């Protein structure tokens, strides 16, 4: 990649319910947190790339650029996408093209303001035909699990292990979130709780298998490789950043057990970064449900298809803080994942980048991964819809 973009600062709010805060307060908080981390003035920003998935619906705010302009007193170009990863990808292109030197990338979502209607909105926007047929935001995850179990012939004892492995994903993510001051849920859960919730729901997945509905904001400052070192001593470089797209209609897709958009985005991002898959030690996956954490491990290539549940199950027998896959260590969702950190759609990607950034700089505190030396590479996966968009972003401590 020519003229690699670099992240020089990150900031975020706590995720959860921000009943008393207006959306602009949240983005202000995130942006101020990021701006304090590096030597930069707001006047240095030449453009802003923002994201929200459905702020116009939840908060009837059509032009969030306007309130960011008011907050920053800036009149620079500002564009809105649906996810932080999409905003970051666009910002990277702009930096690489030499259009701007320094840009703000941020995201915000305030879902709890529409508590009574949010599930209808989520499903209608994610997959309209499934909504019309009676689908809920949970069904596609459950059907994907059913398809997975059918396709790979997981039955009997193995099926029991798979179900426990999925429960362990939630348990592990909650445990990680205990060390994350920004996380929505900072409490432990047990495998039994996850399993009992499924039993109570009489469904393949239960309450503890799904990420919550959240409010929150995140921000990061992106600049060019050439300027990065002037703003911070240890920038984190965007080595690869890629996206791919799939049908809106989940049932119509050819493969119901995987996300083709994730596979393509990952392959392209790796090519762009010029590194090997296992150079990556830290990943933030899009665990909107525990199934997606399992499936993503396969889609990204860390596990072979149909085997991720085994690696998860074995790693969690005596969990050491990472998944052990074919003898290699993979630190996954150290911030607690969407499950426990929270999932304010338009801001979620920013929290994932935040985590990788902190891990690569060795600044993750209690959450810092236990490796011989600070990890060189990390990677985030963000989805829009139910795998309709897949965004992979590979970050590295060194520009290559």
């Amino acid at each position, binding site marked *: 990649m020519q003229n690699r973009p670099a992240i020089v600062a990150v900031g975020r709010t706590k995720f959860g319910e921000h009943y008393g805060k207006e959306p602009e307060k949240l983005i202000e908080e995130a942006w101020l947190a990021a701006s304090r981390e590096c030597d930069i003035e707001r006047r240095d920003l030449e453009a802003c790339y923002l994201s929200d998935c459905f702020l116009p619906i939840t908060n009837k705010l059509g032009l969030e650029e306007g309130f960011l302009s008011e907050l920053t007193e800036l009149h620079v170009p500002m564009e809105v996408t649906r996810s932080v990863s999409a905003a970051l990808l666009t910002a990277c292109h702009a930096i690489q093209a030499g259009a701007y030197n320094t840009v703000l990338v941020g995201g915000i979502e305030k879902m709890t303001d529409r508590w*009574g*209607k949010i*599930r*209808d909105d989520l*499903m209608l926007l994610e*997959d*309209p*035909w*499934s*909504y*019309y*047929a*009676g*689908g*809920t935001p*949970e*069904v596609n995850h*459950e*059907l994907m699990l*059913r*398809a997975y179990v*059918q396709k790979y012939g997981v039955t009997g004892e193995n099926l029991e292990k798979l179900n426990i492995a999925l429960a362990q994903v939630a348990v592990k993510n909650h445990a990680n979130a205990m060390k994350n001051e920004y996380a929505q849920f900072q409490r432990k859960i047990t495998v039994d709780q996850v399993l009992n919730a499924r039993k109570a*729901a*009489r*469904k*393949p997945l239960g309450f503890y298998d799904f990420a919550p509905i959240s409010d929150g904001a995140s921000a990061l400052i992106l600049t060019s490789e050439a300027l990065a070192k002037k703003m911070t001593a240890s920038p984190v470089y965007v080595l690869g950043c890629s996206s791919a797209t799939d049908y809106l*209609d*989940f*049932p*119509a897709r050819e493969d*119901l057990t995987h996300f083709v958009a994730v596979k393509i985005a990952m392959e392209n991002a790796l090519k762009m970064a010029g590194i090997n898959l296992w150079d990556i030690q830290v990943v933030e996956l899009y665990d909107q449900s525990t199934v997606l954490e399992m499936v993503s491990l396969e889609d990204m290539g860390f596990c072979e298809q149909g085997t991720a549940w085994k690696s998860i199950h074995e790693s969690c027998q005596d969990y050491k803080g990472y998944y052990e896959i074919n003898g290699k260590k993979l630190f996954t969702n150290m911030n607690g994942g969407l499950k426990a950190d929270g999932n304010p759609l338009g801001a979620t990607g920013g929290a994932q980048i935040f985590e990788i950034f902190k891990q690569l700089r060795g600044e993750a505190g209690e959450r810092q991964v236990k490796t011989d030396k600070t990890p060189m590479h990390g990677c985030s996966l963000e989805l829009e819809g139910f795998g309709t968009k897949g965004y992979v972003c590979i970050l590295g401590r060194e520009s290559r």
Partner: protein
Amino acid sequence: MSSEPIERRVSYLGDRLKASRCQICGKEYFEIRDYCGNCGRKSFGKMDSIDLFYEKGKLELCTLVTEPTNKFTKLGSYVYGIVSFHDGKIRVPGRLTDHIVKDGEVIDFSALEGREVIPRFRRRYSVDKSDVIPTISLAFTLADEYYPHQEYAVAQPDKEYDVPGIVGYGVYTSRFRIKEEGLERAVPFIDEDAVTAAVEAGKLALIHSGVDSALVGKIYVGSESNPYAVKPIAAKVAQVLKLGEEDEDIQGVDAIDTEFACKAASSMFKDAVSLVNYPKSGIKYAMVIGADNSQAAPRGCPGGELDLFVGFGGSAFIFGKNDVIAEIEGWYSCTSDTPDFWRRDGELFPMHGGRFTGDPAYFKHIRKAATRLMERLNLRAGDINYFVTHQPNPQFPVRVAKELGFKDEQYAVSLQVNKFGNTYSGSSPIGLAAVLDVAKPEERILITSYGSGAGSDAYLLRTTSQIIGKRPRQKITVKYQAENPFVEYVDYPTYRRLKLGM
């Protein structure tokens, strides 16, 4: 849904489950496509439209929904999944309908997965009272239960008759029943109403007749429980069943709703045969549907006495001159302004005139129509094989049949009120269908309808030899529905809830 254009587009595709297939590579798409994603530009103009409406699908995957989105909450818990057609070439989302998931019931998903299902035309979800009612066929029932799958094959006609008559028919009732004091009555599932029953009945009539739906030039739907005060049921039936020549998204068919209490449909039989007989009408077939989710106030409220008898169902008859199974040999209609039963505009439930509904209303009109017709055709009760009449309760039809001189064996076959309740506009036509299900060639059937308000139509039909040949096409006979092992009985509160609908 607040956007009517979106509603109309979704209904246009979803009601009938329209699909496309590429002539070049064979790839199939749910929805209409102008070109194939695989073949690109060269597939322009080479996409066949295919139809999943009469097809059998497979439930590939399923799960349970216990916390539906807002618009589906009235459905309670339901099984939801992915249904495939054509060996997985097309996959669509869908829910199982006609299936009550009980509190705490654990569903074995793997036992359901892989089973065959057929699309059913239903209400999609709840909307505000002022909104258009959304419908869809992404609701499925298991093909080996109450409704078996039946193929719709268009048959080339063999013979043209001089006298027009019935060429095919179908009866639709729901899988649910309430049983009280020896009386069984059909109860709609919560996503059913007069509109969905009309479409389902029409579908069965097309299957039985083998008539090409494009040749049906007129559709009459009689009902007194249309969920709309203004908006014809017949238009929905025409669009979903593709009646008349389809041009873009408009059907070349005349569609009209009729209203005259319980004779709204049967009154149109003579109009239908007259129309197909008129040399310049250009109409080969006309369809008449009577469908009702018969309304009654709850027990204990004024008008609540009817709640003991109301049923649910629809019947559809196709009239024409080709391959007639029963010729219409004559009719007689009579009318008087008799206010025995009525529903004021804006009122939810009808009222009735108590004792007044019997002698001066039901009996007087039916007797008049039947005796006049028999006089006109110079027939006596003994010359007629079957007598069918309107069945508001189990007693009235028996009494009027006896008064007219008919014997038990002449009218017993047609008595369906004990099995389905009073299906209002569907009532005497369902009785007629029950007779046609068993009648031999060259038999005479006298049918008298009754509509409060008040009037009666009497028809004399004579069956032809074709009645036997067409019979195997219809597995879903009246008897099959009455004696089906998959019938599910519900209690009174459930019956009221289901009847109220989404």
